[in-house]
Structure formats: structure tokens, C-alpha cells
């Protein structure tokens, strides 16, 4: 009898709680990530981890879809009356988290803020061909360029080109700690090195989205713990980049593994001003000396795709690697080429690497072992991240294992990397034929005319070998089976979390 009364009482309590809350508990989606972010100002940040948060807080004029094609974001449509003019029509009624309406003024302000050298935006080099930004009316933005640039839309789709609220920047100075975006979620709470809680933006312009009420980012530095979190249900999704943990995840019935070749490219770089690497023949010989499949199997546990200079995931432009003769390992040929170049007994060199990005040291070890077979004795220089960056900036290395952030547009990645004036050409690589092709590729707006240019360029880059191109690592997310609606974009972005359901 007493038990019955208690049960009734409990039921009544639950019922009243229900009534007071007026609706079900908020649906919370918890995401495990391995790195905390230093700041949130989209025009200033550089870290991959920051962009993953900004994906949910801000929008850009355009974005990449999961086929890596440009699609509308804040711009509803655009046209190019001539090769040096872009006219964007903005969606109407888009509101910032503050409630203010997005107008062409905000777009102009955002682009000019990125272009202003004082902002020190990494996005500046993506769009510095912009001569002027005009706002003919509230919902139209006209951009004039100094010269045609085929990769302009790709640049505008970069996380650094998020559109911010002008009034908020004027009020706060910068946006490292505050959010002034139009994104599907709004910043609610941030406890650094612990978690960040975002809540649904009820005025989001994509109707019916987002589908969950809250997204919580939890910082868990250890990869195995991230997987454990998904297994136990504490996390709904986690970003995994360690091969051994992916293997483990695939063996577990209670988790779903989503994978796709990413856009970042692992390369083995040469300082082309240091002997013997000033000689392109030596560099190309080493291309025959290494076995890229073996590197993928060991260092990435198979979770990567062998790639040429254009990331293999960019199917529109990337040549199949079967078209590069040096991608079939040929030790005898490598030795012969080295002998012809004046190194019949090989030489000694050093490989700079850092443990910070997964797999870097493993790649260096495999390359070291493979080079030994052609008589090249390489010593590993394992350095911590600060030293690594410093040596990169000073070009103080013989060879280096790197992970480069690629791009779906070949111009954006290749020009800044391999043009003799490129911003991140730390190979100090100078080649007139390469420069010429890069310059031709960027001014042609027609993809069909660009393809043969970049095909020729890829073959040339593999032969001149400022770096040995290795592979693109897979992007991996581990999810609980109940999660629906998430898609991998393929460039690391998480904005499809706006469609996720659980």
C-alpha cells in the first residue's frame, strides 16, 4: 500500500515537472574534440580547431557542399558580368544573433576588415585581388578585382571569410571572445579547456534548422578517451585522427565510423637551395625511391589515399596517380638517376619532423628506411612544435615532413605553395614553367579550360619535385548509431551539424 502511495506521489511529481517545463528536455548534441581553441575571431584565427567551432557560429557568402562544390550560403545567387566583377545577391531577412538584420554593409565591412593589413588576417592573401567592394543596395554586393581570379569563390568559402556584424566589431574591437555571426548556433557558455555550449539560433535562415537544441564541444585531448566517450554515450560524435583508434572503432559494434579522404596533403619537402636538393634530378630520383603505399599502410594504417600535387579528393582536377611514373617504386632506377646526378654512393641528409600532427614521425621513419635502400642516409630531427614552425619560417631544414592544408581549387593551394613568389613556398622553389602554368590557371574562369593547364602542372610538379607528394589522410568522425543527418564535407568542416538529429 505504502509503495503504491509513493509511486503515485512520484508519478505526480514527474507529471508536474513536465507541466512546468512545458515541453521535452532540450536535445543536446555532444561533440568530443582533442583541442581547445585560442580565440573565435573568424578573421584572425588560423587553427583547424577554431574553424570547427566557427562553422556553427558564422556563415560565409558561399560554402562547399559535401561534393566539394560551391553552394550558396549568405549569398542567394551571384553573377560575373565580366571576369573582374562579381555581383552577390544576399538572402533577405537573415539576422545576426543580436537580432539585427544582415545587410550588404556588413559584408563590405567584413571583406574590408580582412583586407586591412592591420587585421593581420590569414584570409587576406585569398582575396587580395579585390580592388573595391560596393553596396549598390541593402542586399547587393559588387566586388571589383584587379585581375581575374578563378579561385575567388573558393577563397570566399574559407572560414576566414566569415561575415561578421559590423556594429559588434565596432563595439568590441575584436571577436576573439564574443560571437557576432548569423550561424545556426549561438555561443551560450565557454569554460576554456573544458567545454563550450552553443544553443540553437531560433532565427536561423535555413528553415527548420538546426534540429538539435544545443551543441556542446568537449575538449578531450586523448584519442582513445574520445572513442570511449562515444562508446559510453557521453559523446554523440568525436573527431578521430589516430589510425590505431580508428581501427579499434571499426571493430566495435556500438559506434559508426564515417570516413572520407580529406583535403590536407602530406608532403616530404626539400629545401631546394641546399645541396644536393638544388638539383631537380636528385629530388625526382628520390620520388622513385619511396613506396607511398607502404607509408600509407604503416603511418596511417591504411586510412589515407595516395595523392599527387592536387589533393586526390579533388576529383575534378586531380590526375590519377597512375599517370605519374615515379609513383611505382623503382629502387634500381632511383640509384641510376642518383648516379647520373653525381651521387653514385648516395649522400647524407636530415629530416625535420614534429610529433604534433599525428603520424609525422612515423612517415619520417618509413621514408628514412626506404631512402636507405638507395644509399641515402637520413637522420631524424624530432623537434617540438614551436621549433618546427620556427625552422619552417626560417627555411632551416634539408628535408621536412609536412601536412599542408589543401583546397578544392587548385589555384588556391598550388599558387601560394609553389609559385616562386608564393606565400608558403618554403622550399624556395623557383621554376619558370611552373610559374607560367600557375599564372595561366588562375586567370581562366572556365573549368574546362583550366583542367589541361593543371594536368600539365601536376605532371611538371611531380618531376621537378620541390616536394614529394605523398597522400591525403582520411577525415574520420566516430558517431553513436542514433545520430542521423551528419555528412562529412571533406575539408574538415562541421557545418552539417545543423542538420543532425538524435
Amino acid at each position, binding site marked *: 500500500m505504502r509503495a503504491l502511495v509513493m509511486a503515485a506521489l512520484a508519478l505526480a511529481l514527474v507529471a508536474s515537472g513536465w507541466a512546468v517545463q512545458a515541453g521535452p528536455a532540450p536535445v543536446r548534441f555532444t561533440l568530443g574534440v582533442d583541442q581547445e581553441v585560442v580565440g573565435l575571431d573568424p578573421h584572425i584565427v588560423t587553427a583547424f580547431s577554431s574553424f570547427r567551432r566557427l562553422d556553427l557560429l558564422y556563415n560565409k557568402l558561399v560554402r562547399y557542399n559535401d561534393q566539394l562544390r560551391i553552394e550558396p550560403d549568405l549569398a542567394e545567387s551571384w553573377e560575373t558580368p565580366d571576369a573582374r566583377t562579381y555581383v552577390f545577391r544576399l538572402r533577405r531577412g537573415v539576422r545576426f544573433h543580436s537580432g539585427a538584420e544582415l545587410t550588404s554593409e556588413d559584408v563590405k565591412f567584413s571583406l574590408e576588415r580582412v583586407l586591412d593589413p592591420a587585421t593581420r588576417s590569414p584570409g587576406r592573401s585569398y582575396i587580395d585581388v579585390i580592388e573595391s567592394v560596393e553596396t549598390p543596395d541593402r542586399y547587393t554586393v559588387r566586388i571589383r578585382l584587379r585581375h581575374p581570379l578563378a579561385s575567388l569563390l573558393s577563397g570566399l568559402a574559407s572560414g576566414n571569410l566569415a561575415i561578421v556584424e559590423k556594429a559588434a566589431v565596432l563595439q568590441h574591437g575584436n571577436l576573439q571572445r564574443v560571437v557576432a555571426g548569423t550561424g545556426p548556433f549561438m555561443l551560450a557558455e565557454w569554460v576554456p579547456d573544458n567545454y563550450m555550449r552553443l544553443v540553437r539560433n531560433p532565427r536561423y535562415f535555413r528553415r527548420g534548422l538546426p534540429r538539435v537544441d544545443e551543441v556542446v564541444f568537449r575538449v578531450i585531448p586523448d*584519442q*582513445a578517451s574520445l572513442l570511449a566517450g562515444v562508446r559510453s554515450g557521453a559523446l554523440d560524435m568525436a573527431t578521430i585522427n*589516430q589510425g*590505431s*583508434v580508428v*581501427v*579499434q572503432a571499426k*571493430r566495435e559494434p556500438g559506434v559508426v565510423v564515417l570516413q572520407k579522404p580529406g583535403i590536407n596533403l602530406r608532403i616530404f619537402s626539400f629545401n631546394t637551395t641546399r645541396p644536393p636538393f638544388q638539383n631537380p634530378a636528385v629530388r625526382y630520383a628520390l620520388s622513385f625511391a619511396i*613506396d607511398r*603505399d*607502404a607509408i600509407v*599502410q*604503416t*603511418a596511417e*594504417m591504411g586510412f589515407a589515399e595516395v595523392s599527387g600535387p592536387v589533393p586526390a579528393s579533388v576529383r575534378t582536377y586531380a590526375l590519377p596517380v597512375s599517370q605519374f611514373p615515379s609513383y611505382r617504386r623503382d629502387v634500381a632506377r632511383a640509384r641510376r638517376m642518383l648516379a647520373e646526378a653525381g651521387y653514385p654512393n648516395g649522400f647524407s641528409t636530415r629530416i625535420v619532423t614534429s*610529433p604534433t600532427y599525428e603520424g609525422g*614521425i*612515423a612517415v*619520417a*621513419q*618509413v621514408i*628514412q*628506411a626506404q631512402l636507405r635502400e638507395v644509399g641515402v642516409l637520413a*637522420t*631524424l630531427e*624530432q623537434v*617540438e612544435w614551436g621549433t618546427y614552425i620556427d625552422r619552417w619560417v626560417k627555411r632551416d631544414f634539408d628535408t621536412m615532413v609536412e601536412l599542408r592544408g589543401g583546397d578544392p581549387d587548385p589555384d588556391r593551394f598550388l599558387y601560394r605553395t609553389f609559385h616562386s613568389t608564393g606565400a608558403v613556398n618554403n622550399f624556395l622553389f623557383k621554376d619558370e614553367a611552373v610559374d607560367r602554368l600557375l599564372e595561366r590557371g588562375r586567370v581562366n574562369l572556365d573549368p574546362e579550360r583550366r583542367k589541361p593547364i593543371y594536368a600539365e602542372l601536376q605532371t611538371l610538379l611531380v618531376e621537378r619535385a620541390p616536394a614529394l607528394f605523398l597522400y591525403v589522410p582520411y577525415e574520420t568522425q566516430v558517431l553513436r548509431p542514433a545520430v542521423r543527418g551528419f555528412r562529412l564535407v571533406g575539408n574538415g568542416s562541421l557545418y552539417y551539424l545543423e542538420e543532425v538529429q538524435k
Partner: protein
Amino acid sequence: MPPERRWLTVVGGAVVLTAVVVAAVGPALWMESALVMRTERLLEGPSWRHPLGTDQFGRDLLSRLLVGARPSVVVAFGAVGCATLAGTTVGVVVGSVGGLADQVAMRVADVLFAFPGLLLAMAVMAVVGPSLRNLVLVLGLVYTPQFMRVARASALAVRREQYVEAAEALGASRWRIVARHVAPNAMAPVLVQISLGLSLAVLAESALSFLGLGIQPPVPSWGNMLSEGRQFMEIAPWNAIAPGLAIALVVLGFNLLGDGLQELLDPRMRPEGL
């Protein structure tokens, strides 16, 4: 010493001896190469061909473990050897002569003591760069003050012994007294410190190699093997267990030996009252 303690000391001694022998002839004990990568044999479990399995690169773990014994043992004995030589010499001398030299030496030791040993070693290694020789010298430096203190304390006690006073009365020179009377009689605690220092040095070498500041790949050391194997703990646990056990066992060996020596050499712990 009770029989079971004696037995443990012998076990400790045997483990240490084994480690030394393996370090000396290790690679000859197993015909597989420690460096050859075999992509068709990645992360294989233990088998006849690879009794401890293979690593991420398909390299034979047994041969890596055997080859990896060398840096552990060389660094341990080398570092403790340096520390003993430097620390004991300075300690005995300043303990015997006292005065300003003593003050200066002890303050320097205090400064070195102010940093946790491993942190100091990491900082210095980061500056001088990783190599076997640097490991020996840096760990030698880090352990020197311990030997200085032990030797000095012991020398202070010995200096007041009657036979030292007798030697002084007979007109022996200060240096003769230090060398012939103080030093030999102050050695017992130093011996114990050596065996404890060895176990610490094995751990320190492993820790530094684990952090990438010690032995550089592809040369195996137990520390870097543990560091590489750690990420495969769930899918290929033998990668981390083998070097982990080896480190634990050798450290235990040095400790057992040290405890035994301490009992043998410390009169206060000798119940028979020799």
C-alpha cells in the same frame, strides 16, 4: 640479513647481470633485424618467427627489445659513473677540507637540486640536442649533487674518527688524509647511492626517449618503444607491454640489489652488530 632478503638481493643481482649481458651481446641473440620494415607483417601478434610480435612498421619486437637494452644500460652506467666520479670526488674533498670550498660546492648543489631532476634533464637535452653521449652527460650532471651530498656527509662523519686524528697527529698532509683515510672509509653509502641511481637513470632514459628527447628513431630504446607502442595498447598491446615490462624489471633489479647492499653495508641495519 634474513635468508629471504638475501635471496631477493641475488635475484636483483641476476636481473642486473642479465640486462648487462643483453646490452653487450643483445643483437647477436636473435637473427631478425631490429630495423627492417615489412609492410606485409604489420602489428602481428606473437608467433614463432616473431616471439614478441611486430610493431606498426612490421619490425620484429624481440630484436628491438634486445637492441634497446643497450641505451638503457649504457646510459644508466655511464650517467651514474659520471655522477659518482664527479660527485664523490667533490663531496669527499669539500667534506674533508670544509670552509669556503664546502659552502660554494653545497650551494651549487642546492641550485641543481632546486629543479626536479627530469625537468632539468629535459631542459638541457632540448638545448644540447638528443644523442646517446648527451644523455649520459646530462643525466650525469643531474645526478651529481646527490653523490656530492652523500659523499660529503659521509666524509664529515669519517673526518672525526680517531684514526683520522691520529694521522693528523702523525703529520700526514691534508691531501694524503683525504685520499688514504677519508675517501675509502666514506664509500659505503656511495655504493648504495650508485645502485639506486642506476634504477633512476634507467627510468630517466626511458622517460626522455619516450618524450622524444632521448634515443632517436629508428634506433630502438625501451623508452621510445614504449612511446610508439602506447597508441596500440588496445589493438596490439604487445607493443607497449614488452618494453614496459623490461623497464619495470630492470628498475626492480637495481632496487633489490640496492636494498641488499644497503643492509650489508649499513652498520645500523646489521642486527648481528658486526
